[in-house]
């Protein structure tokens, strides 16, 4: 069953003013439970507006949103419970840390859910381990941590609510390559262990290619496509026209193919490119 479903979802900013803008235009989408979805789109394409609908931060101007089979906004009293199912990590989440200690900060979400102390404690220890925050840091002020650590604490705070859907808006932005690989690797481990659904918003085609099982492309407020990386990156020219791109390695193999080398398959990660090249060499 689809964990996320939208029907004709439309959102208009500034209705009735000269600044009226349709930010999300008639989006029909179905995301199956357990997917790892990369969300890409140019600046202003509507991807942030779209994800804010998925846990009820925005109310659709038109159309419907279903989470886990239940329609958002149908019964306002249910909204709070549905929101616990969809965890949203904003860009630069470290700016939202506020508690006295790391432990209390991660505890904030689970506490609001009314869980028992034991259960809260279990979740804090589990998520801290997953994001690589050592227990020695629990009593420290979050503001004493490094930038990368702060960000991982903030992500742990949302993970600890064990949402069925975890949405992260550019979790690696501003991090160095090692920090980026670490955080994305941890999110992938979390996804593997919990078998939940993850939506990863990113401007890095390389990161999306490496981690996502499916890719959602927004373009000018519309859903352009929702498909596998192979099918999405096959549309290199279209992506480039909409302000996106394909990974460098994909461009290399497309050019080889245009030069007459029989590449045979769509290439979008370095490891695949290596294996494919070795195969082509041994077939020669």
């Amino acid at each position, binding site marked *: 069953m689809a964990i996320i479903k939208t029907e004709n979802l439309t959102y208009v900013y500034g209705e009735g003013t000269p600044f009226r803008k349709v930010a999300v235009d008639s989006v029909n989408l179905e995301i199956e439970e357990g997917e790892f979805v990369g969300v890409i789109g*140019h600046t202003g394409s509507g991807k942030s507006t779209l994800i804010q609908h998925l846990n009820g931060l925005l109310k659709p101007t038109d159309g419907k949103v279903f989470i886990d089979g239940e329609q958002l906004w149908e019964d306002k009293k249910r909204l709070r419970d549905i929101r616990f199912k969809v965890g949203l990590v904003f860009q630069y989440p470290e700016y939202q840390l506020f508690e006295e200690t790391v432990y209390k900060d991660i505890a904030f979400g689970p506490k609001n859910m009314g869980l028992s102390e034991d259960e809260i404690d279990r979740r804090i220890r589990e998520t801290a381990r997953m994001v690589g925050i050592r227990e020695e840091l629990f009593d420290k002020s979050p503001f004493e941590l490094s*930038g990368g650590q702060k960000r991982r604490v903030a992500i742990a705070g949302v993970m600890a609510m064990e949402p069925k859907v975890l949405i992260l808006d550019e979790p690696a*932005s501003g991090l*160095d390559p090692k920090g980026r690989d670490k955080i994305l690797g941890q999110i992938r481990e979390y996804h593997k262990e919990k078998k939940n659904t993850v939506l990863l918003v990113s401007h890095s085609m390389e990161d999306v290619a490496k981690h996502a099982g499916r890719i959602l492309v927004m373009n000018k407020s519309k859903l352009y496509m929702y498909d596998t990386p192979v099918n999405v990156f096959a549309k290199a020219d279209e992506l480039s026209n909409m302000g*996106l*791109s394909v990974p460098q390695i994909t461009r*290399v193999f497309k050019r*080889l193919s245009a*030069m007459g080398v029989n590449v045979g398959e769509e290439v979008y990660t370095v490891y695949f490119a290596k294996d494919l*090249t070795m195969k082509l060499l041994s077939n020669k």
Partner: protein
Amino acid sequence: MNSFLKAENLKFSYINNIEEPPVRTEVLKGVSLDIKKGEFVALLGHNGSGKSTLAKCFNAINIADEGKVYSCGFDASLEENLLPIRQRVGMVFQNPDNQIVATIVEEDVAFALENMGVEPSEIRRRVDEALKTVGMYEYKDHAPHKLSGGQKQRVAIAGILAMKPQVVLLDEPTAMLDPSGRAEVLKTIKMLKEEMGVTIVLITHYMEEAAQADRIVVIDSGNVVMDDVPKKVFAQVERMKELGLDVPQVTELVHHLRQQGVDLPCDIITEDECVKALYELLK
């Protein structure tokens, strides 16, 4: 004069006065570096390595505790040199929204010139020229907050160009941009270097961008640990990964293939070079 930005045994610490006693963190531990006029240098290092701190020493936002910094020939430790340095060495930061001050694009570009007391007719001329240079002239009457990230960064660059800088320091100018925004900004940077002879220092976490520089300087825990042309730096794949950095995808692919015994040169860092080498192999 040949050396344009120069650091000699530069040491710099941040002091946290909130703690009692104050806590001193040494960020730069004796950096010596010489950047020539017209050079395009990419400055790499993991988060917290000291690269931004170093860049800020070159336009006298940070003043060295020990050692010397010279920017365009001026000693950055002398108070009377602050203004001349800042008029010559412009800086662009990561977040475009933090550096736009006016409500109309052309007013934003004129901001520094007005503060410098430049003649109005000269301001007009320089603002138009700067906006044309970065390809944003047709947006001069627009509100900056309605522009895309890449367009905002180009407006920020225009604001610096209008001051006729000799050096532009860019601290992760593309970190928050989408792929086409990144490409726009990089194209603008290369044009500044090639057509106007501006000296460029670019801090970035995108290795494909660094591959386009004349020279790469890698900072690690407050010291310069690598300083060479991109081909030589990226050839050391394992070393770059140890330093928390990366190499372009094409370099990584070639590295893996070489490990499997495939005969390829070790200094492939651009898409063109990779396509050519693989074509020779597979045709």
